[in-house]
């Protein structure tokens, strides 16, 4: 199924699209995925998934290119090591930096894919024993992780989560089949569309940010880049531990709901510096950090698919969008996907492997063409993207209501983000709200209102413990710290 000419052709096209979007600063990988949804609407399931996987893998890598050459990260995932890469360029080692990014992104991606191939079926078998109680606690755990791990201020993360959950409540689709908050509008009865919301929150809000940006436009002066693959084998032999550590961390962070490539890259860069034998070299143009974080952000893409495929719980914002597409194509994520349609799962695995292998030749092409790509004026690009957003959201349901949703969601997201409210919990709230409520109500009905039943099954109880532990740990840690403080103040 994967090796059909049509699928391979759209993969290559998607690769160029991803490489382009990733390398233009201001266009993010999530935006690229959101904008692809209207296009994949009209494709068969496997090419649709192929397009999304390829485009995002390329975009996460190509974000490194302007970061290295211009000190402007192409996507948030590259921001962690932009300074380091630029320092290397100033030393005249741009090829080494770009080559390291390219090769170790592919390696990280392949590692993540191997973990996906091994872990997902095993986890799916485990998950087939899950009932509504376990799913309830699992979704709650996922939402908890998203709030506590990804935001600096958990309170604000919780609030956006609640807002997302509230949006998920709108419409007819609830266990009672009762129209909620529909204000007598037929359009709203179908619920607030997830895809127009995401296009609004990720694409339209970026356009708003670009238009509001008062900083002077940067003139991109890019020098020629030579052979990027030269010397990479020596780098690989020098830092095997870093490659492995980055890939493992990236895959694990990717698998955590809500935490995606950018968090993986930041954590990985920090860990690389902490455990390095030459920490003083970090910041002066040292390739070690690039190796580890480059591997981390690409492996997180594959890791994010593990909970997405097995439970339908997105590992990051990109997989949140992809889950929407999977539902549209009748490839409902969950353990049943592994038993009733295993050929689709194997196709997804193959696509991941192909995409990461394709990254190397196409990435080299992109690096060579970087000068021309980075010269595209953004004031010409953004309005065209706006039209694409409008038409794309219209195309989902052929109704202008989607465009209205996009506008409102984009404005709200823009205001929220300006006030340091994280968006990721809201996305997860919208995507998982229905699942959370369904399992909650089903469990309540099964338990006849007896709350203790939620802890009666062993797996459910274990998940509940972990969740509650994460809830109370910030306050517990604060208490412990306050108890340790007094003796020192007494000494003075």
């Amino acid at each position, binding site marked *: 199924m994967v090796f059909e000419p049509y699928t391979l052709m759209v993969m290559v096209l998607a690769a160029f699209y991803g490489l382009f979007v990733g390398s233009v600063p201001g266009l993010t990988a999530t935006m690229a995925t959101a904008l692809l949804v209207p296009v994949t609407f009209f494709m068969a399931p496997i090419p649709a998934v192929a397009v999304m996987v390829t485009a995002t893998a390329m975009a996460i890598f190509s974000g490194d290119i302007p970061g290295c050459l211009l000190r402007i990260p192409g996507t948030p995932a590259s921001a962690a090591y932009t300074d380091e890469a630029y320092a290397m360029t100033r030393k005249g080692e741009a090829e080494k930096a770009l080559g390291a990014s390219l090769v170790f992104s592919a390696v990280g991606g392949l590692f993540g894919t191997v973990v996906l191939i091994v872990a997902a079926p095993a986890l799916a078998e485990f998950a087939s024993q899950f009932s509504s109680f376990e799913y309830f606690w699992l979704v709650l755990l996922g939402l908890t992780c998203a709030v506590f791990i990804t935001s600096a201020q958990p309170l604000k993360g919780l*609030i956006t989560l*609640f*807002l997302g959950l509230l949006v998920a409540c709108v419409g007819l689709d609830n*266990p009672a089949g*009762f129209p909620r*908050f529909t204000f007598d509008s037929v359009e709203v009865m179908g619920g607030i569309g997830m895809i127009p919301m995401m296009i609004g929150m990720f694409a339209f809000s970026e356009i708003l940010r670009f238009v*509001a940006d008062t900083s002077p436009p940067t003139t991109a002066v890019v020098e020629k880049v030579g052979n990027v693959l030269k010397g990479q084998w020596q780098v690989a032999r020098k830092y095997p531990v870093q490659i492995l550590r980055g890939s493992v961390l990236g895959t694990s962070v990717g698998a955590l709901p809500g935490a995606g490539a950018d968090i993986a890259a930041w954590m990985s860069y920090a860990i690389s510096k902490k455990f390095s034998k030459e920490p003083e070299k970090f910041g002066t143009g040292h390739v070690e950090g690039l190796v580890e974080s480059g591997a981390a952000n690409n492996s997180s893409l594959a890791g994010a698919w593990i909970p997405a495929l097995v439970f339908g719980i997105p590992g990051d914002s990109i997989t949140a969008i992809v889950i929407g597409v999977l539902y549209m194509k009748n490839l409902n994520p969950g353990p049943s996907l592994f038993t009733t349609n295993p050929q689709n799962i194997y196709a997804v695995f193959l696509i991941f492997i192909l995409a990461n292998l394709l990254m190397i030749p196409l990435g080299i092409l992109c690096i060579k063409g970087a000068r021309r790509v980075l010269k595209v004026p953004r004031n010409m690009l953004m309005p*065209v993207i706006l*039209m694409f957003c409008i038409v794309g959201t219209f195309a989902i349901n052929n109704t202008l209501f989607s465009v209205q949703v996009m506008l409102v969601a984009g404005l709200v997201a823009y205001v929220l983000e300006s*006030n340091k409210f994280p968006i990721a919990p809201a996305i997860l709230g919208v995507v998982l709200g229905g699942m959370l409520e369904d399992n909650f109500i089903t469990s309540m009905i099964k338990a006849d209102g007896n709350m203790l039943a939620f802890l009666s099954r062993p797996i459910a109880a274990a998940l509940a413990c972990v969740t509650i532990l994460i809830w109370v740990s910030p306050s517990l840690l604060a208490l412990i710290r306050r108890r340790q403080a007094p003796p020192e103040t007494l000494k003075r």
Partner: protein
Amino acid sequence: MKLNDAIIGLLLLAVGLAVLIGVQDYPNIPGQDVGPDLFPALIATGLLIGGAMLVVRGWRERSIAPWLVWGDWRHSPRHVRAMLVLVGSVLFYIAASDWLGFVICSVTILFLLFRALQLDTTRSITVAVVASLVIHFAFYKLMRVPLPWGVLLPYAW
């Protein structure tokens, strides 16, 4: 656009209250204690608590955090115009696309935005027309999305 946390907290309190009032008359699932009002009520309670905490925090920080900060772009008329054109174009499309048609709306929006973003007139017009036709072709012909023809219906291709 930055608001003091207290103001956002008040808005959230309002939303939470509105939801709680709204779900009051929801019926229960026949034969069960739980109904479609439970989940929104729980969320609304969470919003009320969160909103209250934000109000407290915002009030405590009122000396260092101003009530409303518009942002640098407010001071530059060029940027204000661009923002208004941006939001206005989407509203214009929603209102006018059915009777003016996609192509006319798209060319207008693109041209106005290009000009608002300082692109020169010749390139604005050419790219606006070319991009609109390309998008129309891609979505209407290739993907069969029913983009409205509007006034151009007699000349539809």
